[in-house]
């Protein structure tokens, strides 16, 4: 097929993959925005969420019943994390909190394997991972139905969360808490409730991300590593920006795929692993807080 169409196909595929990365990164952003904690356990939460979902279905619950049960479970996990891991560490340094979330990742991964076992499972969302026919016929490009659905879901979630943060009372409370806990407390914002809400939302986001990734790649331990794909997205978009996540996801996805297909062969391939990170570093050199991140003002 002519080169231009192939390029477009790779580009579109990359953009769509990027939205999937953005969906995972969204969980990170949520938690960071509200409690300044970089939740390294997000990858483990994605894994645990979708594993539990599939596990409940295997135990006999139908799809539409397993969904709220898993959401409930993730809310519990989020609340538990906030209560037992974050609250005791409330005034510690960033590094300590980061380490705590890495420890948490181990715990969640272990618990997931403890309860649900180590078998690999499949998840069928009813959307086939196959090319959309009319696109195929018109242009010869392959665009997967599942990918497009995932992109739509990701877009919707980002839009919903962005609206939540900017237009609702709860969102304003979240932003206030992120800015300054003490000040927020002093004007009466219920800190604990806010944090629990944030962690619960992050859990739900993790579930959605897990379901889409699980449908694509199978529900198994390797899902934990999608978090590593989301990190460059976070850097480029800024840790605190919800709309930034989508834009950064698109950039990372597109550049990654185009880089691998067109530049990769000169190096023997396999550059997808580090290329997004290099890109992120270059971005940071120009804008150290990411595209939409909050500028860090340090006082002497």
């Amino acid at each position, binding site marked *: 097929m002519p080169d231009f169409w*192939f390029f477009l196909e790779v580009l579109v595929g990359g953009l769509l993959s990027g939205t999937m990365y953005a969906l995972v990164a969204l969980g990170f952003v949520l938690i960071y925005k509200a409690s300044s904690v970089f939740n390294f356990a997000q990858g483990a939460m994605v894994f645990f969420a979708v594993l539990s979902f599939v596990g409940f279905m295997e135990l006999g619950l139908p799809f539409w019943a397993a969904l709220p049960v898993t959401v409930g479970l993730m809310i519990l996990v989020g609340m538990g994390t906030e209560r037992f891991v974050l609250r005791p560490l409330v005034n510690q340094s960033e590094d300590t909190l980061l380490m705590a979330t890495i420890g948490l990742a181990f715990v969640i991964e272990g618990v997931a394997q403890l309860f649900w076992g180590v*078998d690999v499972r*499949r998840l069928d969302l009813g959307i086939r991972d196959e090319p959309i026919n009319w696109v195929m016929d018109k242009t010869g490009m392959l665009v997967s139905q599942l990918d497009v659905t995932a992109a739509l879901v990701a877009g919707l979630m980002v839009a919903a969360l962005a609206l939540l943060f900017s237009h609702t009372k709860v969102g304003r409370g979240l932003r206030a808490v992120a800015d300054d806990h003490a000040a927020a407390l002093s004007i009466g914002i219920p800190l604990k409730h806010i944090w629990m809400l944030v962690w619960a939302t992050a859990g739900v986001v993790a579930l959605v991300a897990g379901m889409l990734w699980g449908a*694509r*790649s199978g529900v198994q331990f390797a899902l934990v*590593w999608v978090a590593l*794909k989301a990190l460059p997205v976070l850097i480029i978009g800024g840790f605190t920006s919800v709309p930034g996540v989508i834009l950064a996801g698109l950039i990372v996805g597109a550049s990654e*795929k185009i880089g691998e297909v067109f530049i990769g062969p000169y190096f023997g*391939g*396999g550059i997808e692993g580090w290329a997004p990170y290099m890109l992120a570093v270059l971005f940071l050199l120009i804008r150290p807080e990411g595209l939409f991140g909050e500028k860090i003002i340090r006082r002497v």
Partner: protein
Amino acid sequence: MSTDKIFRRVVPAISAAAFIAIAAASTAATAQEAQEQYFGIPSSRVGPYSAMGTGYYGGIIDYLNYVNMKGGVNGVKLTYDECETEYNAARTVECYQRLLNKGDQKMVVFDTLGTPGAYAVIGRMAQDHVVLAQYGYGRTDAADGRVWPWVFNAAGHYWGQIAVKMNFIAQKEGGVDKMKGKTVVHLHIDTAYGREPLPAMRQIAKEWDFKLIEIAIPPPGLEQQSQWLQIRREKADWVTFWGAGSGMNSTAITTAARVGFPREKMIYVTFGGAEEDMIPAGDAAKGTFVAANAAPGRDYPLIADILKVVYGAGKGNMQNPDRVGTVYYNRGVGAAAMWIEALKNAQRIHNKVGKTVNGDEFRDGYEALDITDDKLKEIGILGMSAPFKMSCAKHDGSERFKMMQWDGKKFQILTDWVAAPDPAFIRKLIEESAAKYAAENNITPRTCS
């Protein structure tokens, strides 16, 4: 007392206790009957390769228990210890050292289920007198027993495997002459394991005049969009897939489905094609070919008997008994069967029938493995494993594989044991590589009469 204080007192106390416990555990001379043969098992039951590890080592442990229930090896009961490696090279080394000695007995054989672990310990075998019983993985040039007296590979190695697969492809195309001008893509994980078959493949590509394209997938390989779009663009006729970890393996199938590449033109490697890899891909996996060095199935007499005897008594190792008879499980049983045959040989050769053997004796026993069809029938795995014979210079197994195809629910076995078309060529490659290693490391290969 506040939690703080408790922590401050309890932690040092626990640390001291831990220290003593480990010291005790590692130097303890466990009261052990002289009639028990000890095996050290480095399992990998958690992490990304857990599906593989639980199946394989489950098969091994079930077989050891089975042999015990049937009276042991000439009366010698078998005992084992497990150690979790998480499929990590450094942990494998640590487990190796922890499992090495039990009381006054040393373990005689070590099986790491994977290449990273094998490479981590391979240099210690000659010093410690432990056999590294690779089973379908690991260092290919260890097939040259003159350079590697302590390392074996009783199931086929990767160079033999790729030759068999290329032959299969040629068959499907209608003959070697029809391969001219075709395009074969070797889609592989971007590690040494993934690149293993390339030297042999390149040679075959030259001889048969087809185009070989090498495309790498960086681990963990949950996203293979770019690779498959490239494959589509190159209009590949066949894809040989060499991945690791169920994430990569099932993603390849779903992505192939997405770009419309027929699964009937994909051949998976033994370590990439098991039920755990096909099932997550769902219907998309139908039609994929896989090479097998241990055929799956529950109706082999041994497997059926294990189900009856071991699981019947509630001593089965698999959490989910449905996994008995799967690819990895049977592979584990096959590997363990070879250990026990080697043990029997060792007892016989060194006049130690009814007694435990040491590393040297076990090595001799493994080298003396002569697994004929009759012997396979006796063990109960005729058709599950291929017959072979080891010798002083030849430390690899039969180099024969069965081709199977996934039908959506299970593997259908298509062929009987297929050998590589030119074993002499492969043997030459192996000897060259082993000689290079010997030269670099100042090893004088032993002479085999």
